């Protein structure tokens, strides 16, 4: 399996190179290269996760090594899903780079042996983990789309078209893609939190225990709820929505990694 993670990292890195060259040179075949490498990398990544699952009967998110591996997998998978619908081709560079960063980091962090505990064998836990990871990957994409939106809007408002203007898609497409990413991410986060509560109740006997991760997840949820609410009621869109998506993702990153390193709590062991 050590070989497979090298292969996966390698494929993701090549895919990043393909997508980023596509961004610069705008040649369709470069985009295809990026796509093929990302798809192959995703396949290898899936095999690895499947292997870990088969070996232990648990979702492999028990240490930082495994968590990063699943994160890279979620980013690549979610990107493909959104690409199918929205076709923001230039986003490939961002997504592939993110997936590559996760898997390469996972490769560098040795997997600590974690005792297999029976409390990890629960359908609620599986749903909880998968929806949280996929949801967060959607938020990551929303952030990338937001960055592209800001670059494109600056080009249009500044009236100096140039590098970005030609390469980036229309503001409308970026805006609606960002919205779709956030809506999807929020739905999955909600499912993840609910299943988390149910799992907590079944294992520890209470829904909510003021664990720092729980608190920050709650904050993340409220923030994205506010973003969506603003959009639906008073029309928070365009640049405002793009900035919110970036801030939102910063909070997600803190919840995901920061809490584990800086604060304590029962999620801690998974990411150290």
């Amino acid at each position, binding site marked *: 399996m050590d070989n497979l993670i090298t292969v996966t990292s390698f494929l993701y890195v090549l895919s990043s190179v393909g997508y980023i060259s596509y961004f610069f040179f705008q040649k369709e075949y470069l985009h295809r290269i990026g796509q093929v490498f990302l798809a192959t990398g995703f396949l290898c990544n899936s095999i690895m996760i499947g292997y870990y699952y088969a070996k232990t009967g648990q979702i492999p998110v028990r240490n930082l090594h495994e968590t990063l591996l699943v994160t890279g997998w979620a980013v690549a998978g979610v990107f493909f899903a959104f690409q199918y619908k929205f076709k923001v081709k230039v986003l490939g560079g961002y997504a592939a780079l993110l997936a590559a960063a996760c898997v390469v980091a996972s490769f560098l962090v040795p997997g600590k042996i974690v005792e297999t505990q029976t409390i990890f064998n629960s359908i609620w836990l599986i749903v909880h983990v998968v929806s949280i990871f996929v949801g967060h990957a959607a938020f990551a994409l929303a952030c990338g789309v937001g960055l592209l939106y800001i670059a494109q809007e600056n080009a249009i*408002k500044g*009236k100096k*078209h140039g590098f970005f203007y030609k390469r980036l898609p*229309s*503001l409308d497409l970026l805006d609606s893609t960002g919205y779709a990413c956030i809506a999807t991410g929020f739905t999955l986060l909600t499912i993840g939190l609910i299943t988390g509560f149910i799992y907590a109740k079944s294992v520890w006997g209470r829904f909510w225990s003021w664990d720092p991760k729980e608190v920050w997840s709650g904050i993340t949820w409220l923030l994205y709820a506010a973003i969506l609410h603003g959009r639906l009621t*008073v*029309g928070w*869109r365009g640049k405002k929505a793009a900035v919110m998506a970036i801030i939102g993702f910063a909070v997600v990153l803190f919840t995901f990694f920061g809490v584990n390193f800086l604060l304590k709590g029962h999620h801690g062991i998974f990411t150290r």
Partner: protein
Amino acid sequence: MVEIILLGLNHKTAPVEIRECLAISKEEAAAMLDAIKKSASVNEVVLFSTCNRVEILMAAGDKAEAVETAKRHLSEFKNVPLSQFQDSIYIHEGDEAVRHIFRVASSLDSMMVGEPQILGQIKEAYFNATKRKTSGVILNRLLHRTFFTAKRIRTETGIGDNAVSVSYAAIELAKKIFGQLEGKKVLLIGAGEMAELAVEHLLKNRVKEIFVANRTFKNGVELARKFGGSAIKFEEVPGFILQVDIIISSTGSPDIILTKDQVKRIMPGRRNRPLFFIDIAVPRDIDPAINKLNNAYVYDIDDLKGVIDENLEDRNKEAIKGERIIDEAVISFKQWYDSLDVVPTIVALRNKIDSIATAEIERTMHALNITESEREALYRMKNALINKIMHNPTHLLKRDGCHGNNSVYIDVTRKLFNLDE
């Protein structure tokens, strides 16, 4: 040997006063093609004329004579003394003529680099020449290569990308903001050629509805009818901004007709859906500060011209790639053209027959298992056979009959025996 000669004048060498005097209509072109073709020195001729150029393309045995003939006919047909345009004329021969026609068709020689009309105009001119039967083996091939090269340049370089007119530039911007223009609503304030052109482009992009506001309501109604839209009163403009997406303004008003505050108040009611203002008027109609509002974009005429300049620069960069493609095309055309020479064709034909005969003899001998002397006899027979076969074709190809133009026979020979593979 027949040579390719091109004689012409264009916007770079002749002022518009001369070009308009020499412009050739379709009927005149037909008569002129016939007249030039009648001349003994000219084998083939194609001519085309646009508002920016007149070009006469010929394949001729006697260069000097052909040039004089073309000049004389141009002068006589248009009733302009030769002395008036003599200095504006350029003459290209051989490869240079080929390169010139490639560049013209690919729009590298145009006033506006990359403009798409020229290729169609040349195609039409060629069609007319084929109808008059004044185009032959050489020019047919040359023009087909021309169309191919021009198409290749258009698809492989960005020479035709990016708008270089104000109304197109505005539409491109609108597409970058809204993605699709389908279903969008447009408000035209005032009137004017550029503004109306922009509306027409928008209609082609299937916008949903056009509103027209004019200080004189009657004029507004007329314009609205032209576009199949509806007229509104000038005072209603601020209210309508609530529902439209694109505003094109082109009034003669000395003052600003829409202020930042007016638009700012409207944005929440639009739920911040984007608004694009195209201000073609001078002095300006739309407060430029509106561009600072979220989701509102204002482009005035100078901004649009800035975009066009940028695009033109890009086209010129792409034109360099186009020149490279033309270099290649000129070389490959030259190869074909040189093959029209008699000697290489005869040699190629002989080699082809020889290789077939040799291969067949070898195969037969392999099966028969024969002696060395029998083998030599067979080879002697082969050579005699080839000489006999080659006798008549060689004679015909080398004969300087057929109006001094044997390129037809050479071309047919090469095609019959597939000598160009």
